């Protein structure tokens, strides 16, 4: 039972982690929580659905198409909702309000055009599960965990070692100084949104496959956001650890205490972490963030 609980927790936490990385990436550079990110994931989920069903694409192609479209949407999200605020040096509260507005706008666009009905993805693997020493895990979960881990690792490597990655890190440190030193801030911010968008595409497809696509699914990213805060907003390893930790903790509480008070525990955990470590487990104020 314990083993199964842990396996389930990691499977759930893996999804949180993937979405949390997107939140953290944007926070690291603009210092605000992009609540529109959930809607980009939602749109990604729809793109994946229509690529697979209406256009009959094979799964790998649909995944790539979704990642690209989500990246474009995320880029447009920045250019339309935030860049003018950025140019006017608006406080981050305005960014958040703009983000919430964008999120509600996108949700309602979907209601008005596609409709409210739930879209179930065609099954990728027939209800197949893998046996892990007595506990079962869905093939899809395993695939999602490995693919997400690979995507996060590639992202991490890119930010740590590439020239552009260094520019991103420099800008997340101090955008003004980075700009003085020749970093094209506009380009870097655009790129960060594109990267976050690619992850949103992956999240959208996996969420759609695992559950379904529907207009308000962006709100399930709330837990991902909590994960990112626990891990330390702005820290990519923190987002991953926060996601897995939250997923496992929730499963343990559901099984060994009571599922009805699971969220009470999740948020108590969040508050406790913030009380003792205000910048989360891995967050570092005024230090390296990405």
């Amino acid at each position, binding site marked *: 039972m314990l083993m199964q609980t842990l396996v389930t927790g990691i499977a759930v936490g893996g999804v949180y982690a993937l979405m949390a990385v997107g939140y953290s990436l944007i926070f690291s550079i603009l210092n605000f929580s992009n609540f529109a990110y959930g809607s980009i994931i939602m749109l990604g989920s729809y793109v994946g659905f229509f690529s697979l069903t209406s256009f009959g694409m094979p799964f790998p192609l649909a995944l790539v198409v979704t990642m690209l479209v989500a990246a474009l949407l995320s880029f447009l999200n920045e250019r339309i909702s935030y860049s003018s605020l950025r140019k006017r040096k608006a406080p981050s509260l305005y960014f958040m309000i703009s983000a919430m507005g964008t999120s509600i706008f996108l949700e309602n666009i979907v209601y008005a055009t596609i409709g409210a009905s739930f879209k*179930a993805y065609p099954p990728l693997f027939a209800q197949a599960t893998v046996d892990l020493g007595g506990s079962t895990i869905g093939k899809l979960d395993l695939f999602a965990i490995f693919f997400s881990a690979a995507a996060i690792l590639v992202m991490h490597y890119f930010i740590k070692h590439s020239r552009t990655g260094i520019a991103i890190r420099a800008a997340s440190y101090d955008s003004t100084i980075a700009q003085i030193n020749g970093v094209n801030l506009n380009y870097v911010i655009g790129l960060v949104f594109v990267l976050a968008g690619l992850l949103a595409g992956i999240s959208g497809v996996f969420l759609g496959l695992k559950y379904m696509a529907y207009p308000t699914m962006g709100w*399930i990213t709330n837990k991902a956001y909590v994960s990112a805060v626990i891990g330390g907003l702005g820290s990519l390893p923190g987002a991953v650890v926060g996601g897995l930790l939250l997923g496992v903790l929730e499963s343990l509480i559901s099984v060994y205490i009571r599922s009805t008070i699971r969220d009470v525990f999740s948020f108590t955990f969040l508050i406790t972490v913030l009380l003792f470590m205000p910048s989360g487990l891995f967050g570092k104020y005024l230090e390296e963030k990405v």
Partner: protein
Amino acid sequence: MLKKTVSFLLVCLFTAALTACGGGSGGNSGGSDPILIGHEVALTGGSALWGESEQNALDMEIEKINAAGGVLGRPIEFKRYDNKADQTEAVNVANRLVADGVCAIIGPAQSGVFIAATSVTEPAKIIMIGTTTTNEKCTVDDDGSLHPYNFRTTIIDSYQGLVAANFAVEDLGSTKAAIFIDIGSDYSQGLAAHFRNVYTQLGGTIVADEAFRSEELDYRAQLGKIKDSGADLVFMPTMQKEAGLAMKQARELGLTCNFLGGDAWASVELVELGGAATEGCFYVNLASLEDPNLAEWVAAYNTKWGKNPVMPNPVFAVDALYVIIDAIESTGGTDPDEMAAHIENIRDLKVLTGYISFEPETHNPTGKSAVIETVKDGEFTFYKGVS
């Protein structure tokens, strides 16, 4: 200049919006003032599928009624607004309907939403008839006081719970049941409580009592616990979305037991989302597409809208419409107190689902029957009728 242009455009927009709002639906056949009936319905959000079906059914009915000369020589007109099946939104919609001057309201279809709207309609003395509002509190409060203007055309949760528990024990031979509910839903909690009472009275044991919060999608932790409890049946009085997903996840975890649910499962989305995992599940429904009494109406609906109605909301909405029309015709007007006094004494009024009578003490219809449906080869199939 720019300011003037902007103001002019705003005025135009405002006028256009007002005109659009005033449009409503249904024909305006006669020259006399139409009788306004409100329709509080979810046209977006998770319950939109039923809401749309309610809308279609009522529009079809009203077209027929107005073509035949309306009621008291006046045409009927709907004032319809979307409440998103949301309690706050329902209060806004109720306020708007009261301001529009409707004489009665059909809907909302969800118990919690209906109760929320009552806070507006009761002080304003507006008759409100719930369609699938099965929770007792919609018409009678916990302290036993009756909501004088609230009625419903459907069965109540205690009856639905009774039917489910009886079916579980007698037809499925269940002795150990797990209950899995949405903790954020009055409907889910109420139905589960009634099921629990009857099931234990019949000798069954509840071996697991698990819950999730609305908007959650992953139930594997709870389902793992249910699997461990050795339950032979999971009673899930949840919406179709959660039920479909939960069944899928349960089968993935290797649960082999039966699944039983309530009327909220009755949407094709249950099968779309749950896929093969929903095969053989059972649920209590308030009305069935295969009911021979409804065959003619279902065919007419299908001809007009090109698809079948999503049960059970549309038929209860049409029942509610007939009840309101009967009250207007019998009292010769739209006085709310006279209408309420008439409705609670209605006996054997011919409506779409059969004949309806009301209990004056509870404002519930009497003698309504339920059906058990199942999923067979991916299709909803009538299993048996219960009365």
